[in-house]
């Protein structure tokens, strides 16, 4: 391939990336890949790609390349087979992205990443909570960390979601929405006792860990901080005889209403919902929930 047709193919590939991002923006599927707070970067990328694409396009029309002796290898003078390979690397994500952008991660990935409870309950690490055994040996640094440990309230879960906590403690029933999902579950995990007996309504997809009894499952959603690759599961155990839980298969989206209870499992106190009603629902338009943290501090 000569120089100019390389530039032309490259400009088409950049256009393809642009189209891919635009398609994601139009359909809203972008949030199935990237958290909303990363959107500024996506707009930046889209505009840069547009500019670069145009530049490559007009460059392909020029007669000769101005000699630019800048010590980097323009990767152009390579064999046909190799450039086919390189360009297909760029073309594949564009095509697969535009075709399967609405796919949502489900129970198999949840199982893969591991439900937090399972991780915590399987072997509560003693090292993590061990007291400062070596504090006498070292003065300054451990004093500092001691001081931090003495006042854990600086950044406790309830301090992070003060309004949510107030609202939940005052009311007898509450609903988990997209916006308070992560906060609510963190609060529930933090201090189950405060919420036992209250009524909760939540939605999510169903999944089960290996070895769960028949009448137990988890209803949860993926929480994303930057992109889907860093997603983790936020969910609550659902257990009870009143409903036939086995009719809800893994990956089914459900809305659960039930009473918060507390279970003790390997010395961990976990919240659990005893369902009063479960019904199947459609997958919400935004199936993931997003970590919120402000950079302003």
């Amino acid at each position, binding site marked *: 391939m000569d120089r100019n047709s390389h530039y032309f193919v490259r400009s088409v590939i950049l256009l393809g990336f642009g189209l891919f991002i635009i398609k994601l923006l139009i359909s809203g599927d972008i949030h199935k890949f990237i958290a909303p707070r990363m959107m500024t970067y996506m707009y930046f990328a889209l505009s840069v790609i547009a500019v670069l694409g145009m530049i490559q396009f007009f460059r392909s029309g020029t007669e000769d390349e101005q000699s630019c002796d800048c010590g980097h290898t323009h990767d152009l003078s390579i064999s046909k087979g190799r450039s086919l390979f390189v360009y297909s690397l760029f073309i594949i994500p564009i095509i697969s992205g535009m075709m399967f952008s609405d796919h949502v991660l489900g129970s198999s990935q949840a199982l893969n990443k591991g439900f937090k409870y399972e991780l915590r309950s399987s072997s509560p690490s003693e090292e993590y909570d061990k007291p400062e055994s070596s504090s006498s040996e070292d003065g300054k640094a451990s004093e500092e960390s001691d001081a931090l440990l003495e006042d854990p309230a600086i950044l406790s879960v309830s301090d992070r979601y003060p309004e949510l906590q107030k609202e939940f403690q005052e009311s007898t029933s509450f609903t988990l929405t997209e916006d308070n999902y992560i906060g609510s579950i963190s609060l529930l995990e933090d201090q189950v006792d405060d919420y036992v007996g209250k009524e909760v309504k939540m939605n999510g997809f169903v999944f089960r860990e290996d070895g769960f009894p028949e009448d137990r499952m988890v209803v949860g959603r993926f929480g994303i*901080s930057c992109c889907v690759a860093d997603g983790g599961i936020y969910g609550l155990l659902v257990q009870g005889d009143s409903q036939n839980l086995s009719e809800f298969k893994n990956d089914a989206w459900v809305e659960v209403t039930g009473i918060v209870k507390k279970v003790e499992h390997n010395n961990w106190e976990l919240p659990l919902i005893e369902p009063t009603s479960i019904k199947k629902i459609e997958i919400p338009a935004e199936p993931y929930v997003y970590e919120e943290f402000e950079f302003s501090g």
Partner: protein
Amino acid sequence: MYQENTSNYKWGYILLFLFFLIFIYGDLFPSTLITDISPAILDMNTIFLSIVLEAIPFVLLGVFVSALIQTFVKEETLARFIPSQPILALLPAVTIGAIFPVCECAIVPIVRRLIQKGMPLHVGIVILVSAPILNPIVFLSTFYAFQTDLTVAWARMGIALIVSLIIGGIVYSRFGNSWQLKEEKGHITHSPHTYRNRLSETFHHASDEFFDMGKFLIIGALLASVIQTFMARDLLTDVGSGFLAGPAVMMGLAYFLSLCSEADAFVASSFKGLFSTSSILAFLVYGPMTDLKNTILMAAYFRKRFVLSFIIIVTIVVYTVTLLFDLFYL
């Protein structure tokens, strides 16, 4: 000649047509055809695309900064700011690393360009390993992810600082000022350009480099997504979480997951109960310094032998320093 030209343009037009076709009708393709073969393929595709999409803005940013350095920074200017005493030179390097809020995808082309412009190798490497961790955004995300345990955020920064200085020292003692980039040293002779020329040159450099680097990013993201999809995390956590095994396991995880340094703290916090604080710190320090995706990016610019020694040095230093930290402070 003319014949050749048109036949190659033809492929461009076919591609263009294909893109528009899929842009409009892509959703109609029944995804059940794929899920019937293996449902995990779509999971993999989603993770792969999300890594690519998340990295693209930062790669573009890195490519642009690199192109700007290429066009506007003179070798002499760079030399003036870096002390000739090699150990002393580490200090401005760490400072630059701390000031530049660049994540690990963006830093590779920038460092390569700086080294090409005459920056000593070890100084460049210190910037490469420190910039993705020592920056305010990463500090804040770690701070938020470990709400109840502020030590993690502070220790992450402290360990990263010490580790990068040690890595710089080792790289200097082993490689001195030898040339470790793939391309030849020297022939950077710029004829004086006009301003307009320089601007278009910057864009040309940037787009060439985007394609040079993009392919490695895509290969890296593909490998990382395969591992994320098919490797259950229990597999690693089963290996062990003891004093010696814990940090090693978490470093392995950090390497293969290839997460962005701004997001890895949230993943790390989900391992809070299972692994010791030092293991989590090993994960948080090691991941941004080197991972699967970055190894492939680095291999694009640096000699293979150097990349290999770099990984070995980083692995040993991070492992040792976190263990020492565990012994003395935790």
